[in-house]
């Protein structure tokens, strides 16, 4: 418990660094949120900027922002008048979370069994063929796989809608794209770590004392072999994040990734900051969750900390 508390406290300075870095980057973006095709009257623009506090010196703005942030206030959105950043993000985050979880689920459901299968018969076709696929999977980025899947399943076979959102079947293609991309490294990792574990003494001992092979495999070996896999899930979530920018714009999914990109294009400084902070916080929490899961799987890790 003390450990969790310490890790949570450690997040505060990290998030602060993110806020400061993003703040200055976002303000350095050329062009402002109120630049339109036709320039606004100088007076109106000045009043808008005064209203949002954008006329104050940057360090002061930063200070205000951090104080508000500490109270959970992400400020107003500049491009969606009347909306706060929290409301805008709140309206999108559910979509991205759902998509992320389903893709992660698909990734684990495909990646781990494939890795186990490959490691059970090393260098047979059961190993070579799936591992060949995973190698391709690592090298095919989401923005190639996505269009290919859409080309085959939506335009070729007509089974699924190519893009859009709202119906359950809209979920399948984006989730599959993200899931398959993440499954590939997961399968390789599972296989590699199983291969390493199965040559260890304790596994041999278990086999020697007559534990049934399947039990050795799943209870003794897999439990330890899954450690690096679980650790990888933290960064994998990060991969899903960057993948989601692409997949969301490919399949017209109204999620956080697209929100971030449009916020940049619109120069909506507050929204840029808000989305980045939410992403950073999510990543930190996922890493913490991965570490805790590791400790639950392996008492040695738990004692070591």
């Amino acid at each position, binding site marked *: 418990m003390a450990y969790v508390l310490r890790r949570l406290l450690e997040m505060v300075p990290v998030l602060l660094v993110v806020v400061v870095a993003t703040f200055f980057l976002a303000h*350095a973006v050329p062009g402002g949120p109120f630049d339109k095709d036709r320039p606004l009257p100088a007076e109106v623009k000045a009043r808008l900027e005064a209203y949002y506090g954008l006329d104050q010196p940057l360090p002061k703005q930063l200070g205000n922002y951090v104080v508000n942030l500490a109270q959970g206030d992400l400020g107003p959105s500049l491009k969606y008048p009347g909306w706060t950043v929290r409301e805008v993000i709140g309206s999108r985050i559910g979509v991205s979370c759902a998509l992320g979880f389903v893709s992660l689920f698909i990734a684990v459901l495909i990646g781990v069994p494939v890795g186990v299968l490959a490691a059970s018969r090393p260098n047979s076709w059961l190993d070579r063929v799936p591992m060949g696929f995973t190698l391709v999977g690592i*090298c095919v*980025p989401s923005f*190639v796989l996505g269009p290919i899947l859409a*080309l085959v399943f939506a335009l070729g076979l007509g089974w699924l809608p190519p893009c859009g959102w709202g119906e359950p079947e809209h979920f399948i293609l984006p989730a599959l794209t993200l899931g398959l991309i993440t499954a590939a490294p997961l399968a390789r990792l599972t296989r590699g770590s199983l291969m390493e574990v199965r040559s260890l003494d304790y596994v041999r001992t278990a086999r020697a004392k007559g534990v049934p092979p399947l039990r050795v495999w799943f209870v003794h070996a897999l439990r330890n072999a899954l450690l690096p896999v679980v650790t990888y899930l933290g960064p994998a979530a990060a991969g899903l*994040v*960057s993948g989601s*920018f692409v997949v969301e714009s490919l399949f017209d999914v109204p999620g956080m990734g697209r929100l*971030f990109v449009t916020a940049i294009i619109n120069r909506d400084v507050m929204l840029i900051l808000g989305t980045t902070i939410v992403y950073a916080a999510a990543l930190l929490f996922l890493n913490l969750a991965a570490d805790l899961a590791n400790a639950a799987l392996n008492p040695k890790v738990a004692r070591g900390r």
Partner: protein
Amino acid sequence: MNAPVVETLASESGWLRFRKDRAAVWSGWFLVAIAAVCFLSPWISPYPYMEQNLAQSAMAPSSAHWLGTDLLGRDVLSRLLQGGMISLFVGLIATAVALVLGICYGVFAAEVGGRAEDLLMRGVDVVSTLPLTLIVILATVVFGQNLPMIFLAVGGVSWLTMARIIRNQTRELKGSQFVQAAESLGQSRWGIFRRHYLPNLAGTIAVCATLTVPGVMLLEAFVSFLGLGVKAPMTSWGLMIKEGADIMEECPWLLVSPSVVFALTLLSLNFLGDGLRDAFDPRSSRK
């Protein structure tokens, strides 16, 4: 602790082992070929890459245009070569940036040692948990999508793994007898870095570098795909894939050729990196 950690790039047995790895060797030649045609593209490409010919827009592959033409009637093959030049350029230069940063940081951390080293490496851990893709995207917008800044931004976030590995290796080298001997003979730190660290790190650096290039190229492609990277009329593989994906229904060839070339290049880089690692890092090959 005493034996050299990794064989140097000059090691003959390393190259012998490498030559036996058929996939890695073929990948190496493939990469050389791709790089050669891309970098020679100003001279050998069949058409100027930005020449528009609206009379021949969106044509399927033919003998005049081997890979077809795009919506503005530009030759896809010529654009593929030019885009490849940009993508490879970003890959190489950003990797070089990451390399220099990673080596400096890693060696410095190992050299200072003690609590400062712990702190420095903890810093790397912290930075690597950040959503760096977001920062890169922001940075490319800030710096107005010009190429040198894309190099810097992409390289600036890719050096973390490098720093970790280099630091671990340097620590082992630091404890080795030949470095202690050099120290006791009064060689300067810089001399030790140049004469002992660098040659012994060369294998690791080569492996790291080859394995960093694909990640870097992917990152550039991401940024270009989102329309925030390379600007028209220039192009890169990421941008071509994006343009192809937009109209894949009518003109699938616009998507297929850049995707295939890009994936093959990344695949070769991975093969080559694995091959180099197996050949020059004996510990990892004997799994």
